[in-house]
């Protein structure tokens, strides 16, 4: 019934179960105590650290939405969006936020992308009849999102540069090819596994 839910449920359980069991066997329990304290705190700090940048982007995008800028950008992508997201009605705000999320992801504006993505989910949920259950459009949006859209993986380039690569940017073209392939595959798989909403 709730397959997706139980799958994450299982993975979450296994990670903690195996982690603690293995930690106990290897005498690493002290470290696990520290990790629980540290990561619980990290979850809170990370959420709080997001407030500023999310506030900034959502504030700015509220202007772009009201001025009609986002809608203009969305217009150009409508034919493609129609194929990937057939369930989103014309001119629905979800379309604009999904696009903004994709664009922010492409240019590596990570926190901005999260802000737009969460907003997109909220808008997609207004089209949802069963609020506990994901829609095909939500699934497709996240599947594309998780396939990585970033055009230039800057952190990797920086890492390569720091460790003395003769050509730090040399992997960009091939990464672009690999990531395009993975995104296309993700869209196809998303479509194939789609059920009724």
């Amino acid at each position, binding site marked *: 019934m709730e397959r997706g839910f139980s*799958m994450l449920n299982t993975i979450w359980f296994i990670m903690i179960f195996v982690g603690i069991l293995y930690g106990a066997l290897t005498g690493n329990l002290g470290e696990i105590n520290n990790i629980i304290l540290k990561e619980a705190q990290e979850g809170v700090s990370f959420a709080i650290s997001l407030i500023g940048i999310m506030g900034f982007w959502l504030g700015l995008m509220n202007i772009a939405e009201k001025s009609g800028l986002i809608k203009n950008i969305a217009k150009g992508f409508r034919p493609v969006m129609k194929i990937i997201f057939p369930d989103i009605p014309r001119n629905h705000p979800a379309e604009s936020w999904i696009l903004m999320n994709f664009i922010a992801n492409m240019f590596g504006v990570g926190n901005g992308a999260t802000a737009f993505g969460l907003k997109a989910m*909220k808008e997609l*949920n207004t089209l949802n009849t069963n609020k506990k259950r994901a829609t095909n459009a939500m699934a497709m949006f996240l599947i594309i999102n998780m396939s990585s859209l970033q055009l230039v993986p800057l952190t990797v380039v920086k890492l390569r540069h720091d460790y003395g690569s003769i050509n730090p940017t040399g992997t960009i073209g091939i990464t672009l090819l*690999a990531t395009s392939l993975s995104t296309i595959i993700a869209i196809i798989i998303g479509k194939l596994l789609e059920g009724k909403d």
Partner: protein
Amino acid sequence: MLEIISLSIVPFMVLIILVHGYIKGIDLYNTFIEGAMEGFKTAIKIMPYLIAIFIAIGIFRASTALDIFTSLLEPIIGLVGVPKEVLPLVIIRPLSGSGALGVVRDIIANYGPDSYPGLVASIMMGSSETIFYTLSIYFGSIGVKDYKHTLKAALLAYVISIFTTMLVCNYFYL
């Protein structure tokens, strides 16, 4: 060149949005405040999901149980041609972005950025995304409990993407 572009994207986006809004006669300041308020609410809402996912990944990583998974999966992933130095990356990538970056740093530091494992790791890092974190906060923020086919599709797409990434790497680097 790349750095200049990446540095100018955000300031230019800000400029374009503000100028466009000003021309269209939007009350910039108050509209900004109204939108920013939502950022606050959303960040608080995803907090419990972040705590849950961070703790699970943290425990799993700290216990070094990752090593067993790596050796268990080695024969399977090896079939696809993933160099064994890059195996830990394949496993940690869907779980944690910062964890994956740490693994890429190790690989690059140990084998060199221009070695075959270094190149494969660089490309793999850029061509996939963290799955569990994204799923839990995005769905968590709107209270959806049943993810439908999302996780299954994302994992399947990830496995196939490893395969295609290796094809691309082998084509260009072997």
